[in-house]
């Protein structure tokens, strides 16, 4: 017990010290992190050839999607004069994400790129970054009402929404009722795709109908259970869409468990490795995605461009794999390209 008390005192002291230190750095820029920051900017000013610090904050860390983006960014760091920094929250939580963004602001990185969990609450934090002289971009998910200089888009909202609807329509024979299992209720990209799915379904497939849209968070088991409940709520349901990488395999699993392969068809935004078994057994008809690694590379490249004060051209030659990346000046969007359709035939080509 005595040892325990000593231990807890030590922890308390350490925590207090840490708090005091971080408190200091945010108020006056005399302590260590700020010193390293000014160091970096000084050397950056001294010789333009120095590596630019490009920081990317994903929605959450440790899921294969963002890890694949990170791999693309690291690849870019081998070719381009950049230092690639990558850190995200361990849960898709807006507050935790904002904290990481603030720490990068304190470190005075050259470019800060965020895939915001909640665009609205992220906007003021991005303003702080801009005020600190940091270039700001968004990637993967946009924060359109923020000070971000440009958005690196994986595929146009129209492209994804249309591809999802087309693939599902093909599987369902262009008729019948379907439902959507989405994830975060405030995620701008998911909601954007859903809006397009509604429009395309109404315009192009008059015999198809969206009966419900539910939100499972980033929880696979919950997505599976909700898909099951949807099939029970609508016995004549013949289609399900898994709107994110956790619900895409979830809806397929629900169809498989219910013994409804061939009766209920699913499509989703799933990563290849997670979708492979479902694409093979037919519980998933197709997965709509994009080359995530290339998106990471493009993100890092865009970070370097803005750090060097360059503006994007209408057509950009990024790398051998991405010779013609379009930039739309009106929406300030850099577009990776058309979406990638993953089926049982090509799923084996991807290792994430």
């Amino acid at each position: 017990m005595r040892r325990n008390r000593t231990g807890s005192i030590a922890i308390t002291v350490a925590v207090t010290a840490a708090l005091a230190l971080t408190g200091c750095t945010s108020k006056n820029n005399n302590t260590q992190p700020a010193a390293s920051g000014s160091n970096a900017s000084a050397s950056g000013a001294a010789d333009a050839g120095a590596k630019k610090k490009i920081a990317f904050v994903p929605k959450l860390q440790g899921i294969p999607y963002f890890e694949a983006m990170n791999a693309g960014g690291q690849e870019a760091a081998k070719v381009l004069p950049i230092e690639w920094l990558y850190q995200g929250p361990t849960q898709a939580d807006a507050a935790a994400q904002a904290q990481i963004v603030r720490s990068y602001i304190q470190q005075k990185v050259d470019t800060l790129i965020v895939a915001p969990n909640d665009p609205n609450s992220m906007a003021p934090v991005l303003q702080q970054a801009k005020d600190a002289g940091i270039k700001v971009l968004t990637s993967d998910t946009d924060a359109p009402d923020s000070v971000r200089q440009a958005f690196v888009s994986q595929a146009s909202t129209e492209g994804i929404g249309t591809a999802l609807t087309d693939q599902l329509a093909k599987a369902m024979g262009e008729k019948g009722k379907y439902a959507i299992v989405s994830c975060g209720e405030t995620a701008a990209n998911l909601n954007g795709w859903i809006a397009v799915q509604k429009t395309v379904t109404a315009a192009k497939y008059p015999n198809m109908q969206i009966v419900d849209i539910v939100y499972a968070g980033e929880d696979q088991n919950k997505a599976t259970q909700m898909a099951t409940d949807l099939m029970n709520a609508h016995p004549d349901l013949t289609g399900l869409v898994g709107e994110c990488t956790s619900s895409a395999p979830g809806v397929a699993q629900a169809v498989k468990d219910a013994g409804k392969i061939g009766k209920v068809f699913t499509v989703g935004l799933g990563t290849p490795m997670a979708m492979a078994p479902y694409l093979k057994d037919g519980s998933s008809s197709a997965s709509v995605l994009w080359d995530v690694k290339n998106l990471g590379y493009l993100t890092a490249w865009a970070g370097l461009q803005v750090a060097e004060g360059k503006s994007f051209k209408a057509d950009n030659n990024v790398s051998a794999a991405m010779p013609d990346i379009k930039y739309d000046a009106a929406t300030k969007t850099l577009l990776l390209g058309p979406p990638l359709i993953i089926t049982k035939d090509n799923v084996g080509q991807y290792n994430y």
Partner: protein
Amino acid sequence: MTTTNATTIPPATPSSGRTRGGVARGLLPPAVTGQEWVLIGVLAILWVVLSLTTPAFASSGSIQPLLSAVAPIALMGVGMTMIIITGGIDISVAGVLMVTGVTSAKMLVDHDASLLVAVLVSVALGGLLGLVNGLLIAYGRVHAIIITFGTANLFQFVGRQIFASKTVNGIPSTLDVFGRGEAGRTLGVPHSFVLMAVVVAIAWWYLRHVQHGRHLFAIGGDPVAARLAGVNVERRVLMTYVLTGLLVGMAAVFIVASGTSTLDQSIGSGRELAVIAAVVIGGTSITGGRGSVLGTVFGALLVQTVASGVTQLGWPSELSDLFVGVAIAIAVGADLIRKWARERA
């Protein structure tokens, strides 16, 4: 004696630790308490209403997945009920789930482990993490919420290290016997639910008729008095955390079995709150000294019924959070009123 689960301290005779029926009959709470009858009533009403208002709520295709979803929560709830009865709490459940879940999933994928090995490893590992919690809480004399808050972060860190920033892909069908599919049921009843029911039955008997079980109520009511009455408080408290760890290890197997063929870091997220919600709605007093595992099962059933019901009715998803929140508020309110009534009496 107006209370339902009065804390009675039977004389602790050292030689008769496992005496059955060592408690005088008159001192026992009723087999099914008042709050449990209320929950049974609410569940019955909900099920009838949902059967009438939705096309398939009462069908096997709806009930079976519901029972599969309830099983892991109720199973963890058994341990959590005992912990909360002693006046403690364990918020490290999500972390234990992550470590045991990812370890067993990796053993299945990388080492082609058999069902038995996967279950044993998961349960044993869960017990070990429970032992860490139990030792710190029983002998460290720091409040359980602080200790398990610390270990929750620690366990989640360990879990993420094992994940190594990747998902576990291609989990084989080894665990299907506890899954949501056809292989996971006998005579239409999910195996995971049956196993949970057996554990609940044993725990119900233990808490009601075994002296050591009654000691837990005594500790929650007044640990000093319990100690003076000869109860080995540290050992009993330690046992509840170890048991919870073992049950969480088993629940992890259920969750992996009923998940997709890919396991990601979301395996534990929010599960500790789901378990605590089930326990509190089930009528266990969050301040300790009173509670029952039967109520916890009904609490878990209520939470999942609400979630499924909201989806099947086509209502907005966030309403299920609202309803569960209201249920918790009512349950805690009822507990406070009972306590107030007891103190006035």
